[in-house]
């Protein structure tokens, strides 16, 4: 995998001079890089998100391919979380939030009247910044999704789903003797992996992660990152992260947001070695004022 990534990177670097593109942050702007790709899993066009009178996302278009990890980075308040939450209509729960634009998952309009948000969220799972296991047992945490969606017809099937999910989340070995212990009794990193297990128990196609490791210590973070890398084989993952290093480590493509605008999208290897926009360069090199 890494061979393919790196082989194309010099090509990009050679085709252009190192003159950075000064992106205007005025109302009209154009995203730099390949924000539109062939055969996307998720496709968004001209997305605008408003909180009341305040606009949080401006005219953003971004495609997400199958089985890739796309990292959304940018300074606080740049709209990356808002964008992420509009992908599974979590913004619907905020009354003053208004979303416009085209969102398609496998070509299906997810904001269509016929699309049930409950069904959508079964297809597009979400992992949150703070590990938020239910105050129930480890087993019940993972079994909750399959239960409400009726994915298992009997207890044996449910057991199977729970165990497979915990295994995929790399947690089964650590908790197999205490599946009935409360999920809240686990360590922070284990709780977050429990939340990931809970999400994949519903067999979503896409997993959205909102700063999944921001509250964890470096080792727990590394374990989560390794897990994300493994999950990529079966899921498409969009991750919002405050840590540029994390984006560099886990993602194949990186999208840089700035003040609600998608400034630059590109292969992670290119973004972190030779970004094309000055804004991106300033942010990832820590010169962002």
């Amino acid at each position: 995998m890494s061979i393919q990534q790196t082989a194309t990177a010099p090509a990009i670097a050679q085709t252009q001079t190192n003159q950075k593109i000064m992106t205007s942050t005025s109302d009209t702007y154009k995203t730099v890089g390949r924000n539109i790709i062939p055969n996307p899993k998720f496709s968004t066009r001209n997305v605008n998100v408003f909180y009341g009178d305040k606009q949080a996302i401006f005219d953003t278009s971004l495609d997400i391919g199958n089985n890739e990890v796309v990292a959304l980075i940018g300074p606080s308040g740049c709209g990356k979380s808002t964008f992420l939450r509009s992908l599974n209509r979590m913004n619907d729960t905020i009354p003053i939030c208004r979303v416009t634009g085209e969102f398609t998952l496998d070509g299906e309009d997810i904001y269509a009247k016929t699309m049930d948000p409950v069904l959508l969220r079964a297809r597009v799972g979400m992992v949150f910044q703070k590990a938020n296991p239910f105050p129930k047992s480890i087993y019940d945490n993972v079994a909750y999704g399959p239960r409400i969606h009726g994915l298992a017809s009997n207890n044996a099937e449910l057991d199977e789903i729970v165990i497979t999910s915990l295994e995929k989340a790399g947690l089964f070995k650590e908790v197999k003797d205490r599946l009935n212990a409360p999920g809240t009794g686990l360590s922070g990193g284990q709780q977050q992996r429990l939340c990931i297990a809970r999400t994949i128990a519903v067999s979503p196609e896409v997993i959205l992660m909102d700063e999944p490791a921001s509250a964890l210590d470096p080792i727990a973070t590394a374990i989560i990152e390794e897990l994300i890398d493994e999950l990529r084989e079966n899921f498409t993952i969009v991750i919002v992260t405050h840590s540029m290093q994390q984006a560099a480590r886990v993602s194949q493509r990186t999208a840089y947001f700035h003040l609600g605008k998608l400034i630059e999208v590109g292969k992670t290897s290119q973004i972190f070695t030779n970004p094309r926009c000055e804004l991106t360069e300033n942010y990832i090199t820590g010169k962002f004022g």
Partner: protein
Amino acid sequence: MSNIKLVEKNLKKRYARERRFQLYGKMAVLTGFIFLALLLIDIISKAMPAFQATEILLDIPLDHATLELEPAQKLDQDTLSALNYAGLIKTALRQAFPEVTNRSDKKLLYKLVSDGAEFTLRDHIISNPELIGKDSISLWIKADDDIDTLFKLETLTSRVKPEQVAFVEQLKQENRIATHFNTTFFSNSDSREPEQAGIKGALLGSFWTLLVTLLLSLPIGIGAAVYLEEFAPQNKLTDFVEININNLAAVPSIVFGLLGLAVFINFFGMPRSAPLVGGLVLSLMTLPTIIISSRAAIKAVPPSIKEAALGLGASHVQTVFHHVIPLAMPGILTGAIIGMAQALGETAPLLMIGMVAFIVDVPGGILDSATVLPVQIYLWADSPERAFTALTAATILVLLVFLATMNTLAILLRKHFEKRW
């Protein structure tokens, strides 16, 4: 002067201020504690006599001649209830004091025992019919309330005659007068005679009233809280409802009583003095408390748990019923119990709907006439007999015990169900 010197200079002042503040706090707590202690000591010391009843040991003749019964006569219920128990007690008293012959002295002698003594004797005989025919049995008979006060508190009142004091002295010497635990207090209902009065009726009245209150206010309160917190659209109407719920909590309770009188009794024609109406009125009063505390509990459920459920594809209703309500339950229950405790201690609205009547019967259901503990206290506090003072205090104590138990229960429930997240 350097900064550090300035800081040093002010440091002493700052510490002194902090110490002063702590001292004020300690004094405030101490004052509150002293008042509480005084109150409790006063009530307990006043209540203690009520838990003890003075009783006189009488040898009651039960031979057939005295009872005017044929030895062969069948002893059925009617015969037994028709016996002259009052006469028997008088006979026993005369036998205990053979030297009393004077008619007025005899009257005073008869007044040593409670008016209810004959019923005690009757109940004893009816439950033990085999005693009939024996020469005599020894039985502790309740003393009259004045004698009770005289014996327990050793204070003379104008209601006790010197002859009676002499009788008591004589009984004392013969070890025929003593105090025993007052079971009557818990097994009888209200009575005009303090030594016969108990709180069973009021207790059951409180029970039925609270049952109605609980069954009405808990589901309605939780339902309203969940709807307002989770589902209600954010608009002017919702704001209006919210403001009014908060206002209702501040309405004087007697207004609810007037409302109950006007609506439930006069308009709907429900029975007066019934726990049903009392419960309805108290529900109106506790609802705001329950709604406000339930909303606070629901608001305290971390949004991350709601998001987790929504993110897994749970619907809004599922999220609320699977996660929000169970997590808010300890808080809701605490609020409900505190609301119930408030209702248990409430008097004013119940006065308005007639639960202040003198009721001797123990209520058997929510439609029977009844009174409640705080009203009973109010009634007895008004009574002239000295012994009622002790009964009042004792009832207050019982009420306090119930309130404390309910509050403890609230704390225990919260501790037990509270989960970490």
